[in-house]
């Protein structure tokens, strides 16, 4: 039986978890690392790299490497125009259509990039299950999490990403709700819970009522463009400004290259992390050198934190709950490690927030639990989530008429009557939007429907009932009926910033086409990793204190020279893309060092047996 998993597809990092004997467990790589950086890089030969390997290329090939792709999900080219100049990669797309990201000579839509990350996680899980001895370790179904405040287009894009990655997306669930599920498992508490989720790119607050295993979301609020990324960007900009003003003041020139920006970004992220524990840190990068105190950092980020608190207040208001009525506060997302965030959230709710579970892992754990519920039909726990934004349609004068209000428990339905404006009109256009604003242009356009096949009648006679359905994933569908004739109408959906089913199918095929190149890239990485570990082991032996003695007593003449030659040979091919050569040289080095390794091993065994320290021999 193939496996199901829960996936947290994050802005900065992604991870995968599964349920083993009723407990959710995060799947780690050989090094014990659970997080896969959500970074994708395209190499010169068109192959794709994902995770740590891709992250390293941010510094060397920024124009071929993309991070934080989640911010582009469900977006059009016009949405990202303002940041396009800051991005190292190309941005294109037709107005009203999905944005396209150019890396090297390939172009990708955001769901395709996300699919590459998902495929990496799928692969990781499959390797893990195979190592566990599963007969069928294939992972073909998953629950994927999204920020609670994601709109329909962003949810649909996430579901498309899953499909492109070859996964049946069992359910899209909200990150804070998933986190509450992971927490609720141990505690079995009843009461009101606030989940504060500040991640790399998004912020969510959800107020839940938990009672006999039912996790009912009362309200949710947030910002899909507020997270750790913004703090990084702010600090990066500060350093850049400083360097540029130095330059204009006649000091050594500084050029704002993409490589320089990435180096600075890396340095300020480290500084941000340092300040979670230390009171002060130093930023020393690209000729910039300055101390940053925690107090100063806190003043800088205060406006961001204030924005999250404002969302919290709105969520409380919508749930009709006072801060003091909240029984538990749960912190999720890497950015909640920032002490001032913890303190201010604690102050707002008047209680110390929970952070027992790793804030990076808790969402994936919840997703795994939900996947398990769906597969086993276990009725102990049930998530009842809400739609974060009101759904409406465009009416006369560009005004929004709301059909399903925000914070309605999903699944939910709504319906609206339409008619014709001229005699014998057979089609009606309907524009669906999401958002709270009065005017259509201020809300998010979701889709334009065309109702066709209306029986010819005088104007105003047809009674067209359009039924909107938001399913448990928070995704919209629509059906329409002409009530006088009871004829079901066909609806043509043109998602405003999404992909059509045909496009998703094509991308699925496309990813198969590239699968070979991607597989080669993976094998190359594996070969390099292996070579690096052999090199490291050899160097360790050569540098060990007893090596001089070993060389004179135990090694044959010329043996040391051979080892050194093999080392040089392997180092030489290591940075190339010639996998065969890397593997051959690795083998050569392995063989030439085998004797050395045995000798050292024998010596330490002897030393251990005689109770003496190696140095004393």
């Amino acid at each position, binding site marked *: 039986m193939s496996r199901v998993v829960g996936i947290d597809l994050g802005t900065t990092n992604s991870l995968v978890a599964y349920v083993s004997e009723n407990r959710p467990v995060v799947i780690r790589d050989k090094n014990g690392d659970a997080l896969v950086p959500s970074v994708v890089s395209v190499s010169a030969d068109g192959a794709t790299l994902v995770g740590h390997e891709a992250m390293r290329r941010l510094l060397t090939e920024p124009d071929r490497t993309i991070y934080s792709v989640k911010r582009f999900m469900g977006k059009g080219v016009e949405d990202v125009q303002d940041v396009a100049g800051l991005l190292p990669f190309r941005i294109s797309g037709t107005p009203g259509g999905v944005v396209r990201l150019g890396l090297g000579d390939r172009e990708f839509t955001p769901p395709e990039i996300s699919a590459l990350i998902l495929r990496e996680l799928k692969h990781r899980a499959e390797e893990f299950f195979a190592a566990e001895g599963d007969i069928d370790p294939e992972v073909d179904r998953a629950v994927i999490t999204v920020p609670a405040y994601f709109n329909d287009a962003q949810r649909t894009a996430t579901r498309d990403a899953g499909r492109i990655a070859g996964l049946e997306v*069992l*359910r899209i669930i909200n990150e804070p709700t998933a986190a509450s599920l992971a927490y609720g498992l141990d505690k079995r508490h009843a009461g009101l819970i606030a989940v504060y989720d500040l991640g790399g790119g998004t912020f969510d607050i959800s107020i839940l009522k938990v*009672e*006999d295993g*039912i996790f009912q979301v009362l309200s949710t609020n947030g910002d899909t463009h507020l997270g750790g990324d913004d703090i990084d960007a702010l600090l990066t900009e500060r350093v850049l400004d400083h360097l540029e003003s130095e330059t204009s003041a006649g000091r050594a020139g500084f050029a704002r290259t993409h490589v320089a920006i990435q180096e600075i970004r890396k340095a300020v992220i480290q500084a941000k992390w340092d300040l979670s524990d230390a009171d002060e840190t130093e930023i020393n990068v690209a000729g910039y050198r300055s101390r940053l105190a925690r107090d100063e950092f806190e003043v800088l980020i205060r406006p961001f934190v204030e924005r999250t608190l404002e969302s919290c207040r709105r969520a409380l208001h919508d749930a009709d709950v006072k801060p003091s009525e909240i029984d538990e506060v749960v912190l999720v997302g890497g950015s909640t490690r920032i002490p001032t965030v913890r303190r201010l959230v604690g102050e707002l709710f008047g209680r110390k927030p929970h952070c027992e579970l790793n804030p990076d892992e808790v969402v994936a754990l919840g997703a795994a639990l*939900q996947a398990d*519920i*769906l*597969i086993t*039909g276990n*009725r102990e726990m*049930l*998530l*009842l989530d809400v739609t974060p934004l009101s759904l409406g349609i465009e009416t006369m004068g560009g005004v929004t*008429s709301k059909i399903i209000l925000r914070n*309605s*428990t*999903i*699944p*939910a*339905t709504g319906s609206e009557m339409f008619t014709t404006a001229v005699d014998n009109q057979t089609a009606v256009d309907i524009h669906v939007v999401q958002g709270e604003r009065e005017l259509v242009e201020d809300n998010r356009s979701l889709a334009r429907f065309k109702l066709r096949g209306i029986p010819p009648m005088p104007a105003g006679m047809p009674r067209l009932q359009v039924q909107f*359905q938001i*399913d*448990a994933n928070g995704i919209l569908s629509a059906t329409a009926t002409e*009530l006088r004739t009871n004829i079901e109408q066909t609806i043509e959906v043109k998602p405003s910033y999404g992909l059509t089913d045909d496009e998703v199918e094509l991308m699925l095929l496309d990813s198969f086409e590239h699968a070979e190149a991607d597989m080669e890239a993976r094998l190359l990485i594996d070969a390099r990793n292996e070579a690096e570990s052999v090199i490291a082991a050899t160097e360790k032996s050569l540098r060990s204190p007893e090596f001089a003695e070993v060389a004179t007593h135990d090694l044959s003449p010329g043996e040391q020279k051979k080892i050194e030659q093999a080392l040089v040979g392997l180092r030489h091919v290591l940075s190339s893309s010639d996998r065969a050569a890397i593997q051959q040289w690795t083998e050569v080095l392995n063989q030439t060092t085998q004797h050395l390794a045995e000798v050292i091993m024998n010596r330490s065994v002897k030393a251990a047996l005689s109770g003496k320290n190696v140095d004393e021999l």
Partner: protein
Amino acid sequence: MNTEPLVPTVQICRTCGGGAPVDVHFCPQCTRILTLGRHGDYFAFLGVPRKLNLDLADLEQRFRTMSRQFHPDYFHNASLAERRASLERSSYLNDAYRTLKHPIDRIEYLLSLEGADRQSARGASGGQEVPASLLEEVFALNEELDEVRDLKSRGAPEQDWKSRLERAREPIDAKQAQHEAELRELSTQWDALADDAAASERRAVIEALRGRMLERNYISNLLAGIEKEMAQGL
């Protein structure tokens, strides 16, 4: 104008073809979840009487219990028909609970069931004529708003016009409180009507409720207008 559909009395199970009463959710023959082709109203669906004073704790308990029965999570491996039925029943349950949970939405819904919703529908209340009982207040308020706008345009201190607005909303707030009390009174009257009460008796209470709701919507709009003026500054 309202084309009254035939009141359904029986629903058909899509799985086994058996018949079932309209207000059951699972087929008595094959036990499968029923599609929502034929159903009663929100009250009947949740199994509560068509009353305006409801026990909210009981209502919530029903909502939870039924959520556990219908939710799509539990029909993931079921047939297409059952999955669809689960989605339909869950949606209807959520819509029903959301509506009946709020006293005002509950009254609106009752009015629509009793065929008295035509002018009280939400959103339609915008450009209505002023209810006679509110003429005096509306007239005074409009004058006050005009003067406030005038003050604003002459750059008067915020404190000045804000306090005028505060004073202007006092009689409206009082009117609203009075209406809420009347609505509660009428709700109790409706609930006290016996099931076999004469149609004219029911009609009278419904009409009175409808009148209060119209006024209530009008007042809400007035208060929203004051809020807007408050928030706008200049």
